[in-house]
């Protein structure tokens, strides 16, 4: 068995990504779920590194962990009294059973599809794949994908204003 250090690390990162998912799914405490999500996000960031997507990994850490997760924590704290946090993340058993069934069935189905090679993905290793992606991404964003870039920026502006308006109205 020729196991490289790189692969051991990859395996660890993958496990670090997947295991907290189950905590997110099953924990009774919403705070635990949120913190488990932290590890998932961090693991995803590591997986991006293995894909040579350095910029994406950094963005993942900054936005998901620094932004989204903090936002979610704020949401938890703003809508709950600290004391009864523990008892508020119950699962609906009927739905949980159904959701589990669907999930497992999907998993089995897709796995079967993969194993039986019904879907074949062409695999190409690109020798020109850039090692540092930031410059290339910037070029793409400001040339070929300028319009989506601008649209997304307008979306962000709208979100900025819209969330303010919605939150403000709720206060009143």
């Amino acid at each position: 068995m020729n196991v490289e250090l790189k692969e051991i690390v990859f395996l660890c990162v993958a496990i670090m990504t997947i295991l907290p998912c189950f905590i997110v799914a099953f924990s009774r405490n919403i705070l635990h779920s949120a913190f488990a999500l932290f590890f998932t996000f961090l693991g995803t960031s590591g997986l991006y590194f293995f894909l040579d997507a350095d910029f994406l990994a950094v963005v993942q850490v900054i936005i998901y962990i620094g932004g989204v997760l903090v936002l979610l924590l704020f949401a938890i704290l703003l809508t709950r009294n600290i004391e009864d946090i523990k008892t508020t993340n119950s699962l609906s058993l009927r739905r949980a059973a159904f959701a589990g069934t669907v999930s497992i069935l999907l998993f089995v189905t897709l796995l079967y599809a993969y194993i039986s090679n019904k879907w074949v993905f062409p695999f190409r290793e690109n020798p020109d794949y850039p090692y540092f992606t930031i410059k290339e991404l910037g070029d793409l964003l400001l040339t070929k994908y300028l319009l989506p870039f601008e649209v997304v920026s307008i979306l962000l502006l709208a979100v900025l204003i819209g969330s303010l308006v919605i939150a403000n109205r709720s206060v009143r």
Partner: protein
Amino acid sequence: MDIININSYMIISLLLFLSGLFTTIARRNIIGIILGIELILNSAALNFAAFSKFSASNLEGQLFSIFIIVIAAAEAAIALALLLSIFMRHGDINADKLDRLRG
């Protein structure tokens, strides 16, 4: 043993997606649902990046991942605002009780 390949990434993202799906459906708490959605989005972004590296061999997949991240952030912000709004109005964030649209 070469495990850093498209298959591993697909399995990882599948697991992420399924757990996110489960969370989204089974949770009563709206915040729980949002956590599930974030997981689903994350798995999608990961899939784009993986295909970008292993299949398409250019950077456009990564670009879509970036867009997905941006949209996830936007969604989270709006979700927080709506959450506050719902909480102010109902004093609760139990998704089961928000069924005014029931037929």
